[in-house]
């Protein structure tokens, strides 16, 4: 079965080709069947592969399937090849699983859109790209997937391209990602420069030997890591390249759920975890990762506090949560990062789909200040959304509790400051999540009459995914229970991948049990505190938000406008580059270069005109020319002889 792992990405590709080329000719349900069916089969194959894989010895859990040599030039070689190890096995399960669920959900959500086949084609293309990304056996192929998911993101954000904001958002996503990719590709090249190969296995195996032999400059490794991380900040929306993700919410909600919450945006985390050994040898880079992660977690959460657009709140929450994952990687708790990635995929997809369900019901309204009281009208959505919120807030026993706790524990071990940043972020998270829950589902309905009239629960095709994900959000955490021996199954499963890195980082010693319990309790209390605050603000004393708004207006405005980062970027990069370009064009090109050329031409013609004027038509002046010629030649000879 392992031989067939290439089928996992290939099937969605087939779906893409079918839907992309003849999708507009075939009937809708065939499109859905192709779209979902291919992903489902991929999921099944992934499951089977996983099953076979898990039966192997932990040491033997590595499999490579090389299809063909892709780019071969001189000493450079990169193949189209897939590798299966615990990390990619987990990832492929998450991606195909969550992906399938969201595909199914999309049948309902996108049912009435004229671009239905196009939508499924793109979604399948995305699945293909994402699977390439996680199954790739070398950095270059990873980059292929990396860029391709970016493309799909671009296409799907701009799915409703007639809306300018959607098209703009798509473009922004792509370009900001490109900025990160610039770093990434340089990083890949540096890897080749350093190791002579881009294949994961050989790079990672060579590295320790080279370190021992002193054949590699640690500084170079740090640079490589920082460049790779630059790529990750782009894809995974971290400071300073997070700006595209909130805008990306212009896309259809299932897309946001799949790409901008569950899978694609976590690619950066995957990549950093994949390269954990390099990072392990570059502790400074790791510190940067941790710090950026923690900072992003806090920063994005703070913006999330005051946003009114339900999807944007979720977007900032995603940014923040990915920040946690990077924090995990940065402190060396790679397994925890992947664990959080998995659980986050469940509950964030759930939250997005829930939001989508709400929007579906209320005709696309996204402003939570205009909602309220949906609890009764949409009970299942409400329950599942609540589960998601509890999970993300880290309440026991929901999935987020375990994963977030593992991260915070790791962070504490590394540095209490990071832990403190994390824990503050957790508090903000639970506050803003429950702000959304309360404003949306509780309290008085703030809908206009004609809208509230139509509100209805979503169709089963949308609810079943919600329920599925809800269940996953509840039980998902139990694959990684801390403290109990053997409870951290995911950690053990992933250990072959991260083992070397954690060893190098010296994370072998175990935490003291009491300390761990303390930390868990603190984080639980903090999370509950956040929920309590939200209850106070949005259920009990609803005047409080307004009060604070008036009390500290400048702080509020700053946060509400997302710290003006977009504006600063616009001013610094977009506008200045644009005016610089216009200057280049209108001055350098037109005035200087063309001017010089035209000047020469003009000068030549000028000389020609002067000559024309000399040509007076008078015989005498012609004779004069001859006489002067004779005179000069004679003078030349006189001069020459005298010499």
């Amino acid at each position, binding site marked *: 079965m392992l031989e067939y792992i290439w089928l996992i990405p290939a099937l969605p590709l087939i779906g893409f080709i079918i839907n992309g080329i003849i999708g507009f000719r075939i009937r809708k349900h065939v499109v859905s069947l192709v779209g979902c069916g291919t992903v489902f089969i991929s999921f099944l194959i992934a499951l089977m592969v996983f099953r076979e894989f898990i039966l192997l010895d932990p040491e033997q859990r590595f499999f490579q399937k090389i299809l063909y040599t892709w780019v071969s030039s001189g000493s450079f070689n990169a193949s189209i090849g897939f590798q299966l190890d615990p990390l990619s096995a987990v990832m492929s399960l998450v991606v195909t699983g969550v992906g399938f669920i969201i595909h199914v959900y999309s049948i309902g959500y996108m049912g009435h859109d004229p671009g239905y086949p196009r939508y499924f084609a793109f979604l399948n293309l995305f699945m293909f790209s994402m699977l390439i990304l996680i199954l790739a056996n070398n950095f270059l192929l990873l980059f292929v997937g990396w860029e391709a998911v970016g493309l799909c993101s671009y296409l799907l954000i701009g799915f409703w391209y007639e809306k300018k904001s959607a098209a703009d958002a798509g473009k922004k996503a792509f370009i900001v990602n490109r900025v990160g990719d610039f770093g990434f590709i340089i990083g890949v090249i540096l890897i080749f420069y350093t190791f002579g190969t881009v294949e994961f296995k050989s790079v990672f195996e060579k590295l320790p030997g080279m370190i021992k032999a002193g054949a590699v400059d640690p500084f170079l490794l740090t640079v490589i890591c920082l460049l790779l991380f630059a790529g990750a900040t782009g894809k995974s929306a971290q400071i300073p390249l997070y700006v595209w993700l909130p805008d990306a919410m212009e896309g259809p909600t299932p897309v946001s759920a799949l790409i901008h919450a569950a899978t694609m945006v976590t690619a950066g985390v995957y990549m950093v975890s994949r390269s954990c050994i390099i990072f392990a040898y570059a502790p400074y880079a790791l510190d940067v990762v941790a710090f950026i992660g923690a900072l992003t977690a806090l920063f994005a959460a703070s913006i999330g506090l005051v946003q009114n657009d339900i999807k944007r709140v979720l977007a900032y929450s995603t940014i923040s949560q990915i920040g946690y994952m990077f924090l995990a990687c940065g402190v060396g708790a790679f397994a925890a990062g992947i664990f959080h990635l998995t659980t986050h995929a469940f509950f964030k997809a759930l939250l997005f789909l829930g939001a989508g369900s709400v929007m579906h019901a209320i005709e696309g309204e996204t402003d939570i200040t205009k909602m309220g009281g949906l609890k009764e009208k949409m009970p299942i959505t409400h329950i599942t959304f609540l589960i998601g919120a509890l999970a993300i807030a880290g309440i026991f026993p929901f999935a987020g509790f375990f994963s977030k706790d593992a991260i915070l524990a790791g962070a504490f071990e590394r540095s209490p400051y990071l832990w403190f940043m994390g824990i503050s972020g957790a508090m903000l998270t639970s506050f803003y999540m429950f702000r959304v829950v309360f404003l949306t589902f509780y309290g008085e309905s703030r809908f206009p009459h004609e809208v509230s009239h139509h509100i209805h629960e979503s169709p089963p095709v949308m609810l079943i995914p919600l329920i599925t994900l809800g269940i996953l959000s509840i039980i998902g955490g139990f694959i990684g229970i801390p403290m109990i021996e053997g409870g951290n199954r995911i950690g053990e499963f992933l250990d072959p991948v991260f083992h070397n890195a954690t060893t190098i980082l010296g994370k072998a010693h175990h935490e003291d049990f009491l300390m761990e319990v303390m930390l868990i309790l603190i984080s639980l209390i903090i999370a509950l505190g956040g929920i309590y605050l939200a209850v106070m603000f949005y259920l009990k004393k609803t005047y409080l938000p307004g009060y604070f708004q008036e009390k500290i207006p400048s702080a509020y405005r700053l946060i509400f406008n997302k710290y003006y980062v977009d504006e600063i970027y616009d001013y610094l990069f977009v506008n200045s580059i644009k005016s610089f370009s216009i200057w280049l064009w209108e001055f350098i090109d037109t005035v200087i270069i063309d001017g010089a050329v035209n000047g020469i031409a003009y000068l030549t013609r000028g000389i020609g005109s002067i000559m024309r004027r000399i040509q007076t038509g008078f015989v005498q002046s012609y004779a*004069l020319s001859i006489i002067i010629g004779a005179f000069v030649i004679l003078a030349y000879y006189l001069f020459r002889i005298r010499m």
Partner: protein
Amino acid sequence: MEGVLFWVFGALAVAGTLVVILSRNPVNSAIGLLFCFFTTACLYVLLDAQFVAVIQVLIYAGAIMVLFLFTIMLLNLETDIKKEVTSPGTRILGISIGSGILFEIALLLWHYRITPFLGTYTPEKLSLTGNIQAIGRSIFRDYILPFEILSVLLIIGIIGAVVLAKRD
């Protein structure tokens, strides 16, 4: 004696040329030219080129000058002598560039005295065989081809005169 004659004829020839280029009336110029030709013929005699001197008088002073004067009369040119004006600037330019060329040749002559190649036709030999005989022998033997070409040239001149001056 010869030296004196050279200076006399030379001065007269220059005077003739001066008349040619300075007189405003073309008839006067023609007379000046005639004068110049005559004195040149005299110089030829001084140079032991009596036959050339004769030809000079016959063809130049006789035929060519008549042609000039006929044309002047034919075209009745005396009436617009007044048009013959040149601006002082042109005059200065012309004279300076002309004297420049003269100066250059003179400089070449002055500083670098030439020692001509010496041929076999010494004056003694020439006086022995006779000047005309020598020239005739040369023209009709060594220079037979130029002589024939000259005849073609003259015919072309005739054709030109017929073609262009004929009224049609």
